[in-house]
């Protein structure tokens, strides 16, 4: 087997893994969009905020310590304890639910029935607010996140591929875990949305507020639930990205990579977010490997996703799995 082909396969697999991480962010977008018609620009920051909170709680950091110290002239930074990962996860989730409640109570409750563009602008505002709030609450230094997920080269895959091809593939354990978690998350979310009372209520609210009220659905409850779910997905994405590259404020920028993923997969499809993420992940890695690096001077990964999304917008604006745009005349 030619070397180029074997390397190509390794690139392909790594592309899949990278795609899963994109998909995790895109998933949060799809959830909010499906249930409220809001394109949530703050999803990336939500992931950052979740990761910051998780690290902060695990390390026993005092929230708002800079603010407290500046106002009261004290010198507190840490409580002096650490919280085990599982407990910290649960506490972080409590924070995310509280945040969901606050977002609904103070922002979106007052914007019911407004144009989508206004709701979108509100999420941009929310993104900047959360970024500043996260900074104030937990500090702006880059933090290391370790919830006990295995990291580093997967020995088994390395060995098996070495025996077959005479060349060991480098696949990161963390990426494998991310894939597994993403798969479980998607299956759970699809089942929840399609076959449960609250999932159905969620879709109903997205479709028609008045009709939803008339069958006894509380809009407030559903919205808080949806933002909590988005917070949960953000937490998962935050853990994966944070473990991989440290919890830092550039994490909020990964939200931008989710946009082409959504254009490919469709804004309303949970499986679409996954497939879109995988296509982008594999596409940009393979393009870089086959054309980008040899002929175009490299660094094509930065723009490849956006060009692919543009092509899709021209030929299939609803994405691969998006709801067909039906209009009766």
């Amino acid at each position: 087997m030619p070397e180029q082909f074997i390397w190509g396969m390794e690139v392909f697999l790594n592309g899949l893994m990278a795609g899963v991480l994109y998909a995790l962010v895109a998933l949060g977008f799809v959830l909010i969009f499906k249930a409220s018609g809001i394109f949530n620009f703050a999803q990336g920051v939500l992931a950052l905020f979740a990761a910051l909170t998780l690290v902060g709680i695990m390390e026993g950091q005092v929230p708002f310590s800079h603010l407290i110290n500046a106002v009261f002239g004290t010198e507190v930074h840490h409580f002096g304890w650490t919280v085990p990962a599982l407990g910290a996860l649960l506490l972080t989730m409590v924070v995310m639910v509280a945040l969901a409640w606050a977002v609904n109570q103070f922002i979106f409750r007052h914007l019911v029935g407004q144009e989508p563009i206004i709701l979108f602008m509100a999420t941009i505002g929310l993104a900047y607010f959360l970024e500043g709030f996260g900074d104030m609450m937990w500090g702006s230094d880059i933090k290391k996140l370790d919830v006990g997920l295995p990291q580093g080269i997967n020995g088994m895959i390395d060995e098996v591929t070495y025996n077959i091809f005479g060349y060991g593939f480098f696949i990161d354990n963390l990426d494998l875990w991310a894939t597994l978690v993403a798969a479980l998350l998607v299956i759970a979310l699809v089942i929840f949305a399609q076959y449960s009372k609250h999932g159905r209520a969620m879709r109903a609210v997205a479709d028609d507020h008045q009709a939803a009220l008339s069958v006894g659905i509380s809009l407030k409850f559903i919205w808080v639930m949806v933002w909590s779910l988005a917070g949960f997905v953000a937490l998962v994405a935050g853990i994966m990205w944070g473990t991989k590259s440290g919890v830092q404020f550039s994490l909020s920028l990964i939200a931008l990579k989710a946009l082409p993923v959504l254009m490919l997969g469709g804004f309303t499809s949970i499986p679409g977010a996954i497939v879109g993420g995988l296509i982008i992940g594999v596409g940009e890695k393979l393009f870089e490997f086959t054309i980008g690096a040899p002929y175009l001077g490299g660094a094509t990964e930065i723009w490849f996703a956006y060009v692919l999304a543009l092509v899709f917008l021209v030929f299939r604006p609803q994405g691969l799995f998006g709801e067909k745009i039906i209009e009766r005349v």
Partner: protein
Amino acid sequence: MNDMTPDGYTTEDGRKIGAVVMEMRHITLRFGGVVAIQDISFDIREGEIRAIIGPNGAGKSSMLNVISGFYHPQEGEVWYKGARRPTMKPYEVAQQGIARTFQNIALFEGMTVLDNVMTGRIRQMSAGLFSQAIWKGRAEREEVENREVVEKIIDFLEIQHIRKTPVGRLPYGLKKRVELARALAAEPSILLLDEPMAGMNVEEKEDMSRFILDVNDEFGTTIALIEHDMGVVMDLSDRVVVMDYGKKIGDGTPDEVRQNQAVIDAYLGVAHD
């Protein structure tokens, strides 16, 4: 109406009508300076088909919206099952067992017929968020049980052939029927129908009339409906409230209402001196 008692009465075709389930007492509803409903009182009895009729702009839809909690009257009281109802949000009213349809149809267009009707069962499904999230035991059993009820209603209203079709693709007449199915799925104490025959052709109107009668007959559902087409209503209903310019001008059996001079004037017009 022959022997009207507090416990009920017997209709001309021999159906037993029960006690008062809902009572509107001196309802007045204003939008700024416009009085949409002025001091209207009437009751709805268990098992009857009660119609609210009147010309366009009479305030019928406003009255229905008061009953279903979408509007809150400035004056008057709503009594439901023997107790005064506090000011409630529409979804709370729905949870109390009052289901409705809309004049302009409010369905979940992107969802299938089956899913639309299933949303009507929300009140009957009590499994918590957590047990649903892990989809086991009670939540699963509940889903199956409710699915059976829904399939029965779908059969009853003869919409089996479009069960899996997204509602957005259906023609108008079928959408109206799906909306009725969704309301019915809630097994409501009172079913409110807002112009169920609006925009239908004669054949569709006949179908809808048959379904309304069948629903009342088969499930004993109490139905309150709004129509401005006199003919259809007179054939369907047991008792009729007539509204004009926000006021009640008649109340009684179709025959009584037909002979009421004020009603005749409102419908045929009257020369003012």
